[in-house]
């Protein structure tokens, strides 16, 4: 079995941003994404998930390394300053590299 290295970019942000972030991912060259609702705390204070307005969403996307860089740079430029948001990259291995 051959495993191929890919980047997993994880973005945790205000729930209302989901659509915009997914659009940004698609424009950056991602071919899919996964999302789910989360709660949390950070520099913008506590974010409880009992109402959508104060909830967070976690968005995960597996991409090629170059796409990961684009994604993080665009997030940095367009959204980091204004919104409650965290993004990080990690290394994963997949079987079907052409899928991503």
């Amino acid at each position, binding site marked *: 079995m051959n495993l191929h290295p890919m980047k997993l970019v994880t973005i945790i942000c205000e729930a209302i941003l989901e659509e*915009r972030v997914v659009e940004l991912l698609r424009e950056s060259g991602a071919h899919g994404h996964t999302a789910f609702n989360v709660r949390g705390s950070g520099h913008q204070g506590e974010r409880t998930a009992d*109402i959508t307005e104060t909830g967070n969403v976690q968005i995960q996307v597996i991409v090629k390394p170059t796409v990961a860089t684009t994604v993080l740079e665009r997030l940095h430029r367009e959204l980091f300053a204004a919104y409650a948001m965290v993004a990080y990259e990690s290394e994963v291995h997949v079987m079907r590299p052409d899928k991503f």
Partner: protein
Amino acid sequence: MDLLTAIQSNLLSPAVLFFVLGVFAAVSKSDLKFPESLYTTLTIYLLIAIGFKGGVAIHEAGVGAVWLPALAAMALGGLIPLWTYPVLRKLGSFSIADAGAIAAHYGSVSAVTFIAATNFLKSIHEPFENYASTFLAVMESPAIIVGVMLGKGAFGGKFSLSDQGVRHALRDAVLGRGVLLLIGAMVIGALSGKNGMNSVEGFFVTPFQGVLALFLLEMGMVAGRRLGDLKKVGVFLLLFGLIAPVVHGAAGVLLGTWVGLSTGGAMLLGVLAASASYIAAPAAVRLSLPEANPTYSLTAALAITFPFNITVGVPFFFEIAKRLQP
């Protein structure tokens, strides 16, 4: 019933008391928490129920009776930000974005405040135009659009439809689930009329007041968590959150009386004008005016103006409406 008795009986309604319980739960850091899906479900239910009842009322009254006051309501919603904005800029020294954001919230409306007002009217057996929820439906969006434009510095030329946040926000303001459910259910009510009402009454009318009480328990928790922010918003916004509803409410009652609404109807238009949005506006404003601090607008709308309206405001605007009635 005089004003004081009215206020007192309003304060002892289950809806208001459950709101207080929610505030207590939040402040005492109880482990009570509503699941998110319950909140969404309650919102969907309340919007459909109000819209549907309004639609059935339009069916009975005819569109001819509705269009003029509805148009007046819509205009009022769009105009409120125009005078709110300069006040916030000049007297409150808020930034362009913050002033636009707050103006959008106060021009838009709160469905729950509206329901609390209709409950009050029912409890004192005061008749009102059942189609008044039409005003609620048409008043949600205009102020958001105007407020966002102001907050983007529309008059300084920085406003642009190519901004992604603005595009998303405007689409949501016009076709958001709030407007969609209200107007959609209204059209359904108007089409299916009394027959339709008979079939769904057991769900959209019978349990309505209790569902509202449950929803207010949750709203109380959300508002309670914001109480700590009262210090951050400053004295000016605190006063603004109390004076703006009085001014807007009086304007609404006046306009309602002038276009020929009954005492109850004029009072409802006043309550809508006085109310500040804490569902549709916050989301739209957050997307399009990210540089605005949501603590200002949300705390003012939810922790100051909303409690003021459902406790003191509702009977107060009724008093005004009574005196203005020719």
